[in-house]
């Protein structure tokens, strides 16, 4: 096959891949077709990967390296992806996303080092290289490589920090005075060095290396001060950034599949990030540049009153004879893997004629839709699951609101206390229910470190313990209620 025919075949396959990606994402946006969506996208990826082996610019001596690298990365990711628990999905997405950002940065590095270190035998090699592989490093192209490189590198190191935080490897949100100034200085430094490289004033290998090191440091220093409660937004942002970086490197490599797929993810991810930030009533800049929870609102008005505990038997009776129960799951349910027991409990109630609904806050858990995934795993039909706007009017009519390991998303302080860092965040109005039962491991504050006024209300009772154990006890109690 001549180089030209191979090129045509590659372009045709990339076109098919781009179409499969877009159709796949489209199918993933409806529960009925979602499963087939990933298969479509997967088929697209397979086609693109296989046909890339025919790329005329690939030196045959590098084939085994490519195969070895795919085997190493693929097997490790396959193994980790298969064995990770559903509750740990968010950090795995962060990890895989970081890898994509790193790959985009690596492509940028290879292309930029080519300017800094022109290969001596380049003239001899150029004749064996087909037209598609010749990359013209004009100023526009190098600028895109540099911009894609900085975005990819930030996404790489930032995602790894997000992974470390969610995995519990990094427990502190490190903050110090002048942090934003430092971040801006690092960003400016990276941009200046990147400008040198892009405009080819001075593209010595040392400058290129310093540029990438600064970009990697920026990802770390940007992410370290961000509190765990904001991690969903941050992961989503880095997902969008990786897409953008891939799109930019696609321009550099003149690769339409990368441009289309990267840009689609970049814009879709940006929209998703905005939706999430909006759900928390915060702007993206606010998430990134202001400390949340740990330092914010040090003057928060003290919550008064006492928490009143209750035991499972009483709760069981209360729910067994209720008309309507609304379940509000949170991260505590995920940690305890309690979703199966909770659904078993709800099935018992449904069989008794109790109306049961699940209320999902957009940012409950560690990612939007995190709770939906867990409930789906347990087999909860999705028509029982309602989102914030849908369910908030119904709390007035509920006999019991059962809060399972959720905290900030039901904190009424968000409605009333202007000094609270979460003031203005839309919350689930669980406090409007006749009885509020909170299953909670201990008396500590939530992930954001804010006291929860809900726990001190007159109609609230605390059921202390691990969510799974508490659910088992409730099942026994409901059965005993006769």
């Amino acid at each position, binding site marked *: 096959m001549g180089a030209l025919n191979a090129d045509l075949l590659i372009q045709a396959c990339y076109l098919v891949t781009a179409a499969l990606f877009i159709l796949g*994402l489209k199918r993933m946006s409806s529960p009925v077709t979602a499963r087939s969506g990933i298969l479509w996208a997967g088929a697209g*990826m397979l086609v693109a990967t296989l046909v890339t082996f025919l790329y005329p610019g690939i030196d045959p001596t590098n084939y085994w390296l490519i195969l070895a690298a*795919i085997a190493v990365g693929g097997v490790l990711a396959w193994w980790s992806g298969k064995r990770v628990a559903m509750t740990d999905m968010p950090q795995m997405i962060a990890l895989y996303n970081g890898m*994509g950002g790193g790959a985009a940065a690596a492509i940028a590095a290879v292309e930029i080092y080519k300017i800094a270190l022109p290969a001596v035998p380049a003239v001899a090699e150029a004749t064996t290289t087909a037209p598609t592989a010749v990359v013209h490093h004009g100023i526009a192209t190098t600028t895109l490589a540099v911009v894609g490189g900085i975005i990819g590198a930030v996404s790489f190191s930032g995602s790894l920090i997000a992974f470390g935080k969610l995995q519990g490897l990094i427990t502190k949100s490190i903050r110090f005075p002048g942090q934003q100034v430092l971040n801006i200085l690092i960003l400016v430094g990276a941009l200046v060095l990147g400008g040198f490289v892009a405009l080819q004033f001075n593209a010595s290998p040392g400058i290129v290396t310093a540029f990438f090191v600064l970009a990697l440091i920026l990802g770390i220093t940007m992410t370290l001060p961000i509190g765990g409660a904001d991690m969903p937004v941050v992961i989503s942002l880095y997902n969008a950034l990786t897409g953008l970086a891939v799109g930019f490197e696609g321009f550099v490599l003149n690769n339409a599949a990368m441009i289309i797929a990267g840009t689609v993810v970049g814009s879709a991810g940006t929209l998703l990030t905005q939706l999430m930030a909006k759900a928390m009533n915060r702007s993206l800049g606010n998430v990134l540049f202001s400390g949340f929870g740990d330092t914010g609102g040090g003057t928060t008005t003290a919550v008064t009153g006492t928490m009143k505990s209750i035991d499972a038997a009483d709760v069981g009776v209360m729910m067994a004879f209720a008309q309507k129960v609304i379940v509000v799951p949170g991260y505590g349910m995920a940690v305890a893997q309690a979703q199966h027991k909770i659904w078993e409990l709800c099935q018992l109630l449904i069989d008794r004629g109790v109306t049961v609904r699940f209320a999902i806050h957009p940012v409950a858990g560690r990612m939007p839709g995190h709770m939906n995934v867990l409930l789906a795993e347990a087999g909860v039909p999705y*028509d029982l699951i309602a989102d914030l706007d849908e369910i908030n009017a119904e709390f007035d009519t509920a006999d019991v609101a059962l809060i399972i390991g959720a905290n900030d998303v039901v904190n009424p302080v968000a409605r009333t206390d202007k000094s609270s860092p979460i003031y203005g965040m839309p919350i689930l109005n669980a406090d409007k229910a006749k009885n509020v039962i909170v299953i909670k491991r201990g008396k500590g504050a939530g992930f954001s470190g804010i006291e929860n006024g809900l726990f001190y209300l007159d109609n609230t009772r605390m059921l202390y313990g691990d969510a799974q154990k508490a659910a088992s006890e409730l099942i026994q109690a409901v059965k005993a209620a006769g």
Partner: protein
Amino acid sequence: MTGIVALYIFMLAAFTGYEVISRVPVILHTPLMSGSNFVHGIVLVGAMVALGAATNTLERVIGFIGVVLAAGNAVGGYVVTERMLEMFKASGSRANRAGGH
């Protein structure tokens, strides 16, 4: 591909991404984020080309790391998305069990 054509592709792809996700119910946000995470695993083909065209050790080392990372993004992204969406199939077939609301 000329610069202006590339810009057209960029613009149209950006609108496409926005449209595709704008009608997504909240329950699919996490799987969709995971799915879009898989889609940018297409960076694998770029990393393969970069490594394939490498002519010296430095380029080979960086290219190798790039392909390892990209393969991890693509394979890992696929596996976790598939596992998540697997559950939606189960819930869909059971949707009638509990009746309407």
